[in-house]
């Protein structure tokens, strides 16, 4: 029932502007797959190509083995949840949810129970006979969800479905969506620009930028092993520190940060020149030796303390120290030395491409 979605070198033009520059993805049946990227990177464009509302100007999209490029939108067997919910305002909640079943010519006798079941699944059975105009955002969201999955589509598409909700409801609804998806096992393609949401909800994430896919992987890999500088910067917080690398071979090398201080890492191939070291705030450690700097500012956040540290040369880094490891909060202006957790440090060249192999 749930389908594999293969996107093969998809291209989209708006006039002369190339909004998608050849995107390839292979989404497994039943997978919760997220398109993540900054606003304007082409997520909606790609999603609407899959739905059939945008033409496909190059490449191919397949559901299982069926090429759907020329299949009209209403024959693609897709459920979609829109950013603004797109509830039919002249129909009750139950009529909204039943709409797709009627279109599919499901026998009348089956529609009632199915609608009831769907509404119960999203916990709004008591709203069945209400008109949408006096529902809250969260309730409308649930109607939209029920309406989309009740037709048991091969693919479920969601375009920033939580962006119109307040922060608390957003967290609550994302759990509802995730559990529902698990339970129904429908292949789901989810669009968001919120990296935290993406990490929390997805089986796999494709990070996009300027109409291109930068990395596809499971959330933990995306976070810990970003394949390029863009992903490292977009997902979570990363410190980027300038260095130079000089090596004729792959393997261990010391990246020079200051004449006195260098960082050991594993090169993937020979490299000569300027590079940036990337490290998460929790991968920087206070130490006796290392890059000298001084504390600019500190914020106590309960389980950790967030420091802003100015290092030699004026660059400001963020460092997190866990309260389970220390009880002392360093005062502003204190001189410190910073070391790296060597296993988790990567380096990127000036184009943002990864130069190193990750430690285990």
């Amino acid at each position, binding site marked *: 029932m749930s389908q594999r979605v293969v996107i093969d070198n998809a291209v989209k033009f708006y006039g002369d502007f190339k909004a998608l520059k050849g995107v390839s993805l292979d989404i497994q049946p039943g997978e919760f797959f997220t398109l993540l990227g900054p606003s304007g990177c082409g997520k909606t464009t790609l999603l609407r190509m899959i739905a*059939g509302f945008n033409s496909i100007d190059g490449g191919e999209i397949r559901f299982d083995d069926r090429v759907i490029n020329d299949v009209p*939108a*209403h024959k693609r067997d897709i459920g*979609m949840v829109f950013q603004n919910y797109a509830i*039919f305002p002249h129909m009750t909640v139950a009529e909204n949810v039943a*709409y797709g079943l009627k279109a599919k010519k499901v026998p009348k006798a089956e529609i009632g129970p199915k609608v009831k079941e769907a509404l119960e699944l999203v916990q709004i059975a008591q709203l069945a006979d209400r008109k949408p105009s006096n529902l809250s955002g969260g309730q409308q969201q649930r109607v939209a969800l029920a309406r989309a999955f009740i037709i048991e589509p091969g693919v479920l598409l969601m375009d920033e479905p939580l962006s119109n909700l307040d922060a608390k409801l957003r967290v609550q609804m994302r759990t509802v969506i995730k559990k529902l998806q698990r339970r129904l096992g429908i292949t789901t393609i989810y669009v968001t620009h919120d990296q935290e949401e993406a990490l929390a909800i997805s089986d796999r994430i494709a990070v996009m930028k300027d109409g291109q896919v930068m990395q596809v992987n499971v959330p933990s890999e995306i976070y810990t092993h970003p394949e390029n500088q863009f992903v490292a910067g977009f997902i979570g917080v990363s410190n980027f520190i300038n260095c130079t690398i000089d090596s004729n071979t792959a393997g261990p090398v010391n990246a020079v940060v200051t004449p006195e201080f260098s960082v050991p890492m594993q090169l993937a191939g020979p490299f000569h020149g300027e590079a940036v070291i990337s490290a998460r705030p929790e991968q920087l450690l206070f130490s006796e030796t290392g890059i000298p700097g001084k504390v600019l500012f500190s914020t106590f956040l309960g389980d950790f303390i967030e420091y802003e540290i100015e290092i030699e040369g004026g660059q400001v880094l963020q460092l997190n120290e866990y309260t389970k490891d220390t009880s002392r909060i360093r005062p502003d202006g204190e001189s410190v030395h910073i070391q790296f957790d060597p296993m988790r440090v990567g380096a990127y060249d000036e184009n943002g491409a990864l130069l190193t192999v990750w430690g285990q």
Partner: protein
Amino acid sequence: MVKKKQLDFWSIVKVAILLFICLTILYPISTVVIRSVTNAEGHVTLANFLKFFTTKYYLDVLKNSLFVSAITTIFSIIIGVFMAYVLTRYDIRAKKLINIVIILSLMSPPFIGAYAWIMLFGRSGLVTEFMLNVFHITLPTIYGKWGIISIFTIKMFPYVYLFTSGAMGSIDSSLEEAAENLGSSKWQRLRDITIPVVLPSILAGSVMVFTSCISDFGTPMLIGQNYKVLATLVYEQYMSEIGTSSNFAAAVSMVVIGLATAVLIFQNVYINRRNYNMSAMRPPQTVHLKAGARVAVMIPVLIVVFVCMLPQLVVIVTSFRNCNGPYFVEGWSLDSYRMIFTRMVRSIKNTYVFSVFAIIIMVVIGSLTAYVTVRKRSALTQITDVVMMFPYVIPGAIMGLSYIIAFNRKPFFLAGTAFIMILSYSVRKIPYTVRSAVGFLHQMDPFVEEASINLGVSPGKTFFKITLPMMLPGVISGAILSWIETINELSSSIMLYSGKTSTIAVAIYNEVARNSFGTAAAMATILTLSAAIMLVVANVVSKGKVSIV
């Protein structure tokens, strides 16, 4: 095969609309163009235009048209802007009622103003005789230009009023408050915020007034006497050329079309339509008036409202008076109504039958057109949109003339049929339906339609199951305006009717021409009441958002 067909639903619609406007607008108008540059033998010539532009009589007619239209426009701006300002800014009671009265004045049959003026100020008018007998004062004649201008002003100022009050109501009060906060004086606020926002609307309303004046036929026909204007000239020339090929009438028509087009181009170039589409989060607050100021403001407002209602009142009152031929005699009765329901049943029936058929055509084509213009925007739909608005500004007499030329030869022989009347009504009055539907569509969420398609309903079916029900209030309120304008339509009807296809408007015109004022009044009352009732319905359907403009 099936897939292809459904895929192309909107393409088919686009082609169908294109065919419709080609056949009903472009083709007839092109015949007028061709007629205007040929002579009776069919040879190409500019003689018709030469005749127009070198004969003093015709140039005077052109001058007359421009004169009454210009003066009416000026008066309309003064009254319209005053009313708009007062009604949007002060806490006047019964605003809704005043609004309806003003709209009704705009939507009244084209000749009842003239009729009422004849009743009141004509040679043996009520007021004329009263002044003469009681005060021994001879009132100046209302026949001629000042009669036309005064009636035009009453009928047309609502355009300026509606456009302007729409814009004034859309100025967000926080905008003005912000300006006030920044320390600007009341006058500065007026200059920097109110006027720039409102000016394009005033101009847009003025353009409507001007073109409507050029087109109007009934008023100058009834009250102009020797004062000829372009619309009456077309009719006269056509009547005197009957049996010939109406080349000169076509040339005069081209002059009018040229004028209307020039005004429209002016509007499109100098008035940015988007300007007055500001939507106010917080509509402007109304100012409470103190007793003295209230009287000072209310007196002119009430005068305007009274004068607006005057034609309708005169018509209704006289419809119940006893008549003896052209003269009113003592006493009241339903005689006039009895008379029209025995002698003129056919005209009454025709009016409602034709208008219902026309409205069906307008609703179907109008809502589809509105949809394609808003949702399937392309160069083609833009052109369709503009062409469809054409009949809005082309005088009815000219549309009528073009239909006679176009549809009275192979392969169409439609002259004198009900069909040609219905067709011309549909084409001429459809802009109201389209405009209103477009307005509603712009506020509708396009994703709702995609949600339906997504759930497996084809685009065609989605239109009927989702889009149409949602835009229905817009379509209905627009269609009601179209309908009111249809039953009131005189200028094209008078060119196209035959004995069997006469309508109320034509019958009133003929009755007035025969000085049978009682029956004319009874029929005009029927029209006015129909319009008033439907206007209220439109207001309810659209939740008070009925827009004429």
